[in-house]
């Protein structure tokens, strides 16, 4: 009986703990070293675990703060919403709730800004918004940003983090891959510099479109990057995958990315690349 009661109580206890820790609490647990950390310490450290050095995912605003010169970011005036093409019942509600919770409109923010004084077009994705998935709004904003870079003759930097195409919008999400890719082909023709930065995790339709098409592809240490998930690949080919498969380090070794850059060195590296090329 007592055992039964304990078992029954467990899930509730866990839920409360999660809620306190992650949503409203001041503490956060590092997935890697399991250390309980004071959130402000983590934030002050560029969202890097002060104990083991592993990376937390970054909010759009924190990322912009890290990369773009203070008060120079101007978000493009493009405020759009999905039309919910599959007429899913819960989807619009979910989007609305996420807007309130995260304080951002969608999984990407695009605009212009300066990096050590150099003008750029910048797009930053956010994993906190439906895992950074690309639907109509993300596809449109990225495409718009690329077209703006062409119009303004500026280099473009895209920070990627995504689970892939947004399932809730079905095939229209898939088409955003072709749409963003076609925009990249115009960017190439215009001869402008495009740098993508792959952060943990970058998967699916984003990897299989604009993320992989940059002139220079950077990645953060330890980021997981791929098209299909490892479990799916293993089940499909019936083979074990090599160790470290889909890590940034593995991809660097196999020529898919050009450089792994520590978070605190990203701004300087991007600045130097822009100075060198433009």
């Amino acid at each position, binding site marked *: 009986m007592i055992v039964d009661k304990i078992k029954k109580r467990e899930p509730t206890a866990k839920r409360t703990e999660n809620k306190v820790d992650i949503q409203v609490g001041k503490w956060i647990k590092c997935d890697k070293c399991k250390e309980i950390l004071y959130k402000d310490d983590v934030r002050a450290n560029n969202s890097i675990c002060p104990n083991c050095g592993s990376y937390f995912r970054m909010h759009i605003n924190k990322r912009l703060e890290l990369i773009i010169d203070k008060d120079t970011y101007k978000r493009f005036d493009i405020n759009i919403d999905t*039309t919910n093409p599959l007429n899913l019942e819960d989807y619009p509600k979910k989007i609305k709730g996420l807007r309130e919770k995260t304080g951002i409109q969608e999984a990407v923010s695009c605009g212009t800004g300066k990096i050590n004084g150099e003008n750029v077009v910048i797009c930053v994705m956010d994993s906190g918004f439906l895992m950074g998935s690309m639907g109509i709004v993300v*596809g449109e904003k990225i495409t718009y940003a690329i077209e703006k870079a062409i119009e303004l003759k500026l280099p473009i930097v895209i920070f990627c983090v995504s689970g892939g195409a947004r399932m809730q919008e079905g095939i229209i999400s898939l088409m955003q891959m072709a749409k963003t890719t076609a925009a990249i*082909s115009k960017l190439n023709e215009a001869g402008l510099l495009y740098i993508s930065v792959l952060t943990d995790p970058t998967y699916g339709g984003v990897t299989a479109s604009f993320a*992989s098409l940059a002139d220079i592809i950077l990645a953060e240490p330890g980021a997981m990057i791929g*098209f299909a998930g490892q479990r799916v690949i293993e089940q499909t080919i019936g083979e074990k995958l090599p160790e470290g498969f889909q890590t940034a380090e593995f991809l660097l070794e196999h020529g898919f990315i050009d450089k792994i850059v520590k978070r605190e060195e990203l701004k300087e590296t991007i600045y130097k690349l822009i100075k060198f090329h433009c």
Partner: protein
Amino acid sequence: MQKKEDSGEAIAKSMLEMSKLKVPVIAIVIGEGSSGGALALGVGNRVLMLENAIYSILSPEGYASILWKDSSRTKEAAEKMKLTAKDLYELKIIDKIIKEPNGENEQENFIKTSKNLKKEILNVLEELKELSPEQLVDDRYQKFRNMGEYKIL
């Protein structure tokens, strides 16, 4: 440095090259087309589709498993996903549905379907013949550029 095969980059590169082609491109969905693998070959000026083919973001099994964490809801997923030729025509993802006659003689059905397809390919080529190489690239760009209607917030 030697590159190991990776489907993500391959799909991206294939779409990029297709976007740049200066000749008419016709993509035809003839069976089950899904995810990036299908789209990698799908960046055409016109996209045709056989009446009974399907074209989707993912297999219904995968879709149910990702969205609802329940792969047994395959049938429901297939209904929701809008993956039939008729649905995709309404969504303006495809341009033309190729009729597949459904008579008793399978071989005859196949021949008739092939004839329908051939006729449509020739029609499209005739139409696209009018466009210059630059116009063809632009026509393809505009087609995909306009995919995904949105609302203003």
